């Protein structure tokens, strides 16, 4: 009898009532659960499946999984080849269908959309907590957000730039429950009339607010109190309407939260550098130690209050009005003891210093903006007024000598920025801009008793030293440009004018024991006038075709600088041509990948702080003056970056190389003695070069629900120091590695681990010179682990540990282990959270740190906040 070449299984599917079941898949599975054959039943419920010849029927399983019916699964037996199956109807139950990977991210062109719900965890409250977990995103300790290694340029709330670049308050305050998605806008051009016309490599993010959250004003009241004598209060109000948006926050605390961090304008310094208006830095300081490299709430002994009011409204015809008001009042204390060693060829100089500083800063900052952003024109005016200052009394002891210091400063900063960009009938673009700024920062440093009588005051004792300095500055820039936007080569031709006017005034006074006042000869007074005028013509070419995006900028400028101070017979003018070209290019190498190359050449002149002749006592042991002409520095900077992303797989990679070399015609020369450092700028050609390589990878692991990341960077720099008339070439090398993981295990348990290992080495690049300490190396290991348990939606228990280890060749190993714990209970009925935070459980009261720069070694010991317990009640107002 001829046997069929293939084995066949037949059968019929029907209900108990005899109703046939059409179009149900009947599958045959092998012992490891793989499907070897399948067939859908026909309209009468019949099925016939051919099985491969080689298969062993005895091991097989016949299964019917059909929506609306109970699953049937039976083992097949040998002689049987007809299966009449009765199926039982049931309500559709998808509880067994497991959702393992939601659509986390949508990608549309240059926009990437993260679904907030997919990344949020039970313990999260603010949108910043969730952004931190999104692969490819980074949130710094100061609140700065980066996407694939690049800082964001704008932070939009439902399309509106309510907070400008002071967005840290937004990511801290906005509850993640209000936000549907976080959009990442790459190659973002905020000015509508320039979209598709001027190429941008900026990245911005936009919080998409849920429809139901747009309806009304919401807010939170937080009341906290704790031991020892702690308070922490906050009241906020949020409204994100289509027409009206507000984010107003009132805060006060003494638990170590630095409220001035909310006012950090992340892009301000790069904006000022771009426009050419860099403010003169702070000249005077009360000490030589910096702040410890710890989160500020560990050591910040404060009493702070702030108001952060941001309001925006869209008027008819699309005009947008916005006000951002920042107010801060603060009083804080820093208590430290330090050692500073300077290695010279034949000598090592040691300073010790101990200081208790009470700082009383205040700040008022008002910004008013009017903007009309349309497809055919753009008008914006931004008016900013800021007045801030601080009084800083401190008790300083140095080599058993006790001094009373007072540093007082006031900063006035006023600016107006106007921009107008119309589109002409032929689609070409005109850009008109005018920026004006007034800035002044008067500072007074008083020290009693008078310091360094043998150097400063003919060796006779005197009562006190008083140093005053201010540099009132006016800056104006006006520009006009015409842009041709057709075709793949966009051209822009512009002209502009910069005018800068400054006066440096400084006086060094001595009070005698009898109360009379003296000037420090003639050399302690500056009356320096500075004038800088620049006229420029520039041509910018933007090229965009296929995979290439490139911009070439060719600015030619004629610049004159005049500075004069009669008392020093100084009257100098420097006139020159400047040409500072730059080039950047982005090549798309895949759907989501690109390589970017940037090159810039800059010929930069020094500023007023490098030409004053009279001595300035910048701190109790440093006297500064200049002898050189205007310092000129020529630099080349090259940056190569590779960005790789697979948004569907949630994989983000970036890597890059930076190289720069600068040649300057003057160098700071220091003459160091045990008593005083005298620094002057002297003409001497010298080079500074740096090279760094960095990379980062971030990946979301679907099976674990975890975001993992690894970052590494290596950088080396070579530079020179002129110390006691000896030129010392140094080389510094830093390598750092930081792995991190954010994981949620079994829904109720989450883990977050972050570590940074840093190796710093500094050595003299010239082996011929003999210094008392030839080579230095410090290793820092900083690890933190956070564990959170959420047994249900109401409870949260968490523990954080942070371990810090410092290793150094010739010094003692330093180890710290900080432990914090927190507990939270949510009362849904009252829209409330009750929270208990226990900070610094081990009660660590001091912190020691080493640092290393060139030939200087620093050791500092800081007083920390001790153990603390704060109970906080948060009420959400709906």
């Amino acid at each position, binding site marked *: 009898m001829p046997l069929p070449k293939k084995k066949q299984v037949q059968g019929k599917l029907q209900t108990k009532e005899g109703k046939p079941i*059409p*179009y149900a*898949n009947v*599958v045959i599975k092998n012992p490891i659960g*793989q*499907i*070897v*054959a*399948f067939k*859908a039943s026909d*309209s009468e419920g019949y099925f016939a499946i051919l099985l491969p010849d080689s298969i062993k029927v005895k091991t097989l399983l016949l299964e019917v*999984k*059909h*929506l*609306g019916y109970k699953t049937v699964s039976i083992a097949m037996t040998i002689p049987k080849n007809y299966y009449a199956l009765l199926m039982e109807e049931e309500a*559709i139950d*998808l509880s067994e*269908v*497991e*959702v*393992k*990977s*939601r*659509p*986390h*991210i*949508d*990608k*549309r*062109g*240059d926009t990437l959309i993260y679904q907030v719900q997919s990344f949020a965890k039970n313990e999260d409250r603010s949108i910043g907590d969730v952004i931190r977990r999104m692969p490819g995103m980074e949130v710094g300790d100061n609140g700065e957000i980066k996407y694939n290694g690049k800082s964001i340029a704008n932070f939009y709330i439902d*399309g509106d730039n309510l907070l400008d670049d002071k967005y840290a308050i937004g990511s801290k305050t906005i509850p993640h429950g209000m936000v549907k998605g976080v959009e990442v806008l790459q190659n973002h051009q905020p000015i509508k009339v320039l979209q*598709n016309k001027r190429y941008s490599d900026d990245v911005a993010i936009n919080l998409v607010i849920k*429809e139901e959250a747009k309806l009304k004003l919401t807010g939170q009241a937080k009341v906290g109190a704790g031991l020892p004598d702690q308070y922490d209060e906050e009241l906020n109000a949020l409204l994100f309407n*289509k*027409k009206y948006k507000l984010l107003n926050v009132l805060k006060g605390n003494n638990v170590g939260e630095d409220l001035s961090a909310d006012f950090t304008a992340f892009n301000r310094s790069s904006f000022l550098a771009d426009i050419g208006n860099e403010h003169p830095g702070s000249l005077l300081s009360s000490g030589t130690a910096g702040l410890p490299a710890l989160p500020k709430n560990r050591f910040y002994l404060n009493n702070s209050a702030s108001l952060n009011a941001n309001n925006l409204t*869209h*008027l*008819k*015809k*699309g005009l947008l009005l916005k006000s951002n008001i920042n107010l801060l009042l603060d009083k804080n204390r820093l208590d430290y003891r330090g050692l500073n060693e300077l290695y010279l060829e034949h000598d090592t100089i040691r300073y010790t210093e101990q200081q208790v500083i009470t700082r009383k800063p205040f700040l008022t900052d008002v910004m008013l903006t009017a903007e009309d952003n349309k*497809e055919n024109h753009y008008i914006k005016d931004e008016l900013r007024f800021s007045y801030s200052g601080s009084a800083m009394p401190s008790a300083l002891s140095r080599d058993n000598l006790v001094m009373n210091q007072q540093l007082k400063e006031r900063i006035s900063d006023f600016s107006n920025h106007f921009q107008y960009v119309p589109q002409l009938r032929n689609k070409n673009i005109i850009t008109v801009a005018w920026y004006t700024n007034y800035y002044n920062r008067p500072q007074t440093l008083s020290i009693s008793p008078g310091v360094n009588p043998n150097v400063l005051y003919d060796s006779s004792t005197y009562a006190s030293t008083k140093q005053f300095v201010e540099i009132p500055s006016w800056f104006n820039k006006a520009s006009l440009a015409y842009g041709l936007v057709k075709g*793949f080569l966009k051209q822009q031709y512009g002209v502009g004018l910069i005018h800068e006017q400054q006066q440096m005034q400084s006086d060094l006074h001595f009070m005698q024991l009898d109360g009379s006042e003296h000037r420090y000869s003639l050399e302690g007074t500056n009356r320096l006038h500075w004038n800088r005028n620049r006229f420029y013509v520039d041509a910018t070419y933007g090229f*965009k*075709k*296929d*995979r290439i995006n490139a911009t070439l900028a060719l600015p030619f400028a004629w610049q004159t600088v005049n500075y004069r101070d009669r008392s020093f017979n100084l009257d100098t003018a420097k006139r020159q041509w400047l040409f500072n070209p730059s080039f950047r290019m982005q090549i798309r190498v895949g*759907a989501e990948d690109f390589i970017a190359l940037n090159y810039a050449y800059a010929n930069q002149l020094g500023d007023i702080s490098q030409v004053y002749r009279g001595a300035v006592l910048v701190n109790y042991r440093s006297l500064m003056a200049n002898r050189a002409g205007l310092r000129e520095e020529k630099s080349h900077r090259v940056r190569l970056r590779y960005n790789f992303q697979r948004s*569907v797989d949630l994989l983000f990679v970036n890597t890059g190389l930076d190289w720069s070399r600068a040649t300057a015609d003057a160098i700071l020369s220091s003459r160091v003695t045990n008593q005083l450092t005298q620094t002057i700028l002297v003409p001497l050609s010298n080079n500074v070069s740096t090279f760094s390589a960095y990379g980062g990878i971030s990946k979301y692991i*679907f*099976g674990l629900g975890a975001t993992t990341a690894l970052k590494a960077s290596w950088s080396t720099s070579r530079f020179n120091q002129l110390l006691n008339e000896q030129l010392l070439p140094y080389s510094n090398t830093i390598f750092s590695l930081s792995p991190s993981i954010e994981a949620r295990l079994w829904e109720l348990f989450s883990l977050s681990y972050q570590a940074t290992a840093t190796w710093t080495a500094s050595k003299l690049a010239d082996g011929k010179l003999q210094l008392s300490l030839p080579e230095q190396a410090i290793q820092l290991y900083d690890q933190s682990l956070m564990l959170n348990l959420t047994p249900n939606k109401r409870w949260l228990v968490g523990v954080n540990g942070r371990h810090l280890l410092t290793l150094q060749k010739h010094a003692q190993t330093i180890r710290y282990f900080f432990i914090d714990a927190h507990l939270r209970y949510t009362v849904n009925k009252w829209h409330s959270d009750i929270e208990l935070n226990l900070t610094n459980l081990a009660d660590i009261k001091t912190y020691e740190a080493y640092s290393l720069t060139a030939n200087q070694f620093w050791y500092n010991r800081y007083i920390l906040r001790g153990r603390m317990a704060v109970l906080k009640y948060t009420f959400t107002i709906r």
Partner: protein
Amino acid sequence: MLAMGVVSVSILRAQEDMPVLATAHYNFIYVNDTTQRSKYHEEEMILYIAKDASLYESNAGKQVNEQLLKQAKDPAFDGNITIVGRGSTNESYFVRPAEKIFKVVHKLGGRQYLLDENYPEINWKIGQETKTIGGYTCQRADMHFRGRDYTAWFTPDLPFSYGPWKLSGLPGLILEASDSRNEVVFHYVGFDKVSGGELVFGLPSDLIVTEKSAFLNLQEAFKKNPQAVLKAGTEGKTASTPLVKGKRDDMSTQINQVIDPSKIKSINILKTDPERVSNVTNNPIELTD
């Protein structure tokens, strides 16, 4: 009156709305111009899964509606609408396997046209290879369909015999598929359950039932003179009923309430990056065998 001339309008009995049980998102990549392979079409697509039927369409419709609504609600709305987006698929596929029904809904000039197509009979060959996609263990299946050899990856863990485009009929949801030349590719983006009838889909009664030849004529006419066709088709009519409707944020209802069609002066479609996708199609998805 052009539209009326070439299309036979008839009334269709509405398919009852079916509750969506789950959705799957795919990233659809299609090399439409083999001379410029880097300028391929890329788009996010959604598959809506119901008990007895599925509906597959572009996610762009939702995105366009979002933009429409945003601009129309703006107090500064001046009647000119600009829609920014990459070119998107204007077809939706409705499949009802038990009755071997396969229908295509074309969107053209604000109206929706319903066409019958042959039910794609696919002879799948099950392989023994497995791989994990989005956390699901998937099994391989191969077949030949309209001129291309496809490989699909399906997961029995998601017991829905549906998939992207015209690919379906496996004992589990298809999460990934591509042809042997990698010119037609569907990548898995995500899967989510939809609870308690939050979303429904069906074929609304205001669809214009037509035949392929008549529709192709209309399409041709639209290409030549879109304004005329648009005018003929939309006179006295608001936006047509969408195939997928949500309970909560029903965007189309909002659009109907917010947008007064007489106030719309112009609709301007801006492609975000016109240079990235080739305008030439020399490589149809369905080839002749």
